[in-house]
């Protein structure tokens, strides 16, 4: 390890150090606000260290990690997501009178797992990052266990995630047996060496690894946990589950599948295409009849990751960029949605049914406007970031000639109008009497308000002038095949 290696690893070390510092501070002085501030400071320092790491990119840190511009873009995204979750958590824990700051250690460690995934260049790093992320999430999902359904959610998540991580381990065994190495570069070499098809063990192993990742992404058929866990987990944790824990998996999959050429791997790619298509259809159909906002968002997230898989399958020059750009828009919108839900939830129960949002606009116009922007972006309405994201996705898919998937995308996204609109209509109907919906009256804390407004502005700005970000992402995320 050289000094340059250390500098390239600075973002990871900042997050890890923050976890240790929070732990030490907690053992002397227990205050969740202090822990939150320290966490936030650690994350911001990590964000600030990104330019330093950037100056050393691309740099392989043997044998596990690879810090390049692709990884750093995802790192930035994941860190920003974690910052937002930290801010939301502070107020949420306060509401439940959780004066214990251990939660932030968990948050930092799972964020660390996510960062490792985004920079993973080795199957061991993949496994370790995923486990670190998952295990922290098992705990975080059930952390506020006085909340209704939290324990159930935790136990469901643990059972399913445990099962898939066993499969993942088995997949790694297959890959190691076939390759004799666990580096991603060995995979690329094997692909280059066998243009007429890979060893079936390798393909089976890759599919099992994909299954482990698909569980986190909650794409069909590994999606079943999503609505229950979204509903049961505390809103900030749901925000984390919906964004950071999925974004990092997209990053690692992009890198892992980058060397593959769709034309020569028809079997593998048609399996993935089936997963993408099924996710779009099932997600959008099942979102139709949910009465719970969190469940609606859960099913729609299944569909969103189906869309992202389309970009992923498109590959080529624009595939990774389209997926990354879509992730940015999805992150911002989803964080706003769960941030607002967390805020509006009174202490006894979360405000998460559509009925709770009746007439919200007339009671709390600010919250309603934020939520509307987020939902419009998720729906992909023009002049929001979501539209540009979808457009880029469709363009990448069209360039790769994925017509059947694009037709499914368009048709199933149309269903989105029905369920997203229900939320919007509920918010703008009614007379604004307090009795109409069960939401908290407390005003937004300045920190959260800042974060939420910034995210909303981001959605609009990207929607109107996507060029700078788009060009940046396109330049940064080209993965050499």
């Amino acid at each position, binding site marked *: 390890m050289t000094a340059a290696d250390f500098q390239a690893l600075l973002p990871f070390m900042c997050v890890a150090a923050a976890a240790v510092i929070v732990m030490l501070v907690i053992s002397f002085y227990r205050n969740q606000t202090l822990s939150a501030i320290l966490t936030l400071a650690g994350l911001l320092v990590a964000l600030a260290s990104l330019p330093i790491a950037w100056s050393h990119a691309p740099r392989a840190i043997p044998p596990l990690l690879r810090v390049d511009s692709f990884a750093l873009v995802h790192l930035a995204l994941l860190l920003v997501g974690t910052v937002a979750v930290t801010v939301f958590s502070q107020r949420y824990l306060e509401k439940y009178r959780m004066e214990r700051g251990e939660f932030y250690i968990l948050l930092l460690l799972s964020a660390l797992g996510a960062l490792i995934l985004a920079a993973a260049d080795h199957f061991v790093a993949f*496994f370790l990052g995923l486990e670190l992320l998952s*295990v922290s999430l098992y705990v975080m999902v059930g952390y506020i*266990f006085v909340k209704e359904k939290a*324990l159930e959610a935790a136990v469901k998540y643990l059972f399913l995630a445990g099962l898939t991580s066993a499969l993942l381990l*088995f997949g790694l065994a297959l890959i*190691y*047996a076939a390759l004799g190495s666990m580096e991603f570069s060995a995979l690329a070499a094997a692909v280059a060496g066998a243009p007429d098809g890979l060893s079936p063990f390798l393909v089976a192993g890759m599919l099992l690894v994909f299954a482990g990742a698909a569980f986190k992404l909650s794409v069909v058929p590994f999606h079943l946990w999503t609505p229950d866990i979204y509903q049961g987990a505390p809103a900030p944790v749901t925000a984390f589950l919906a964004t950071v824990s999925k974004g990092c998996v997209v990053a690692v999959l992009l890198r892992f599948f980058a060397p593959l050429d769709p034309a020569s791997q028809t079997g593998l790619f048609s399996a993935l295409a089936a997963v993408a298509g099924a996710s779009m259809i099932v997600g959008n159909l099942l979102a139709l009849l949910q009465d719970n906002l969190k469940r609606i968002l859960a099913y729609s997230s299944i569909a969103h990751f189906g869309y992202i898989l389309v970009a992923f399958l498109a590959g080529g020059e624009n595939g990774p960029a389209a997926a990354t750009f879509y992730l940015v828009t999805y992150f911002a919108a989803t964080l706003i949605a769960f941030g607002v839900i967390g805020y509006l939830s009174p202490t006894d129960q979360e405000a998460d049914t559509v009925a709770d949002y009746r007439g919200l606009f007339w009671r709390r116009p600010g919250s309603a406007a934020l939520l509307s922007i987020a939902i419009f972006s998720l729906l992909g309405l023009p002049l929001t970031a979501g539209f540009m994201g979808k457009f880029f996705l469709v363009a990448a898919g069209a360039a790769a000639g994925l017509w059947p998937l694009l037709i499914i995308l368009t048709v199933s996204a149309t269903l989105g109008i029905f369920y997203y609109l229900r939320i919007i209509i509920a918010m703008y109907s009614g007379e604004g009497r307090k009795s109409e919906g069960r939401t908290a009256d407390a005003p937004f804390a300045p920190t959260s308000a800042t974060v939420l407004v910034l995210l909303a502005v981001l959605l609009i700005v990207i929607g109107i002038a996507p060029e700078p970000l788009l060009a940046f992402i396109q330049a940064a995320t080209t993965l050499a095949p």
Partner: protein
Amino acid sequence: MMFETAILVGILFGFAVWLILQSSFVKILFGFILLSNAANLAMLSSSGSPSGRSAPVVLDGIAVTAMADPLPQALVLTAIVIGFGVLSYLVVLLYRIFLDQKTTNAAELFDESRSQEGGPEQ
């Protein structure tokens, strides 16, 4: 060629899955213990047959090519510890569920949740 290891891995996976598919939390817990053993063995089996090889400890007089592959062993070691961490949390979680919900059965726990709001309108 390791016929018996394959049989062992298959049997352990099969029984583990059978137990996990039950509705009793205790059975599921047992299933997870078995599953973690099974996955570790599967990983280890990818290091190839141990016949004629020595442990991966470099001592004079043994060629490195005649040693067992240390990499899967290292990964399995990590996996054992991680599995134990998860298991211990699961034990406490089940205890907590028993204290709060007075049940040790998934069917009962989830059945209760189904009758409440949040799901699709019936």
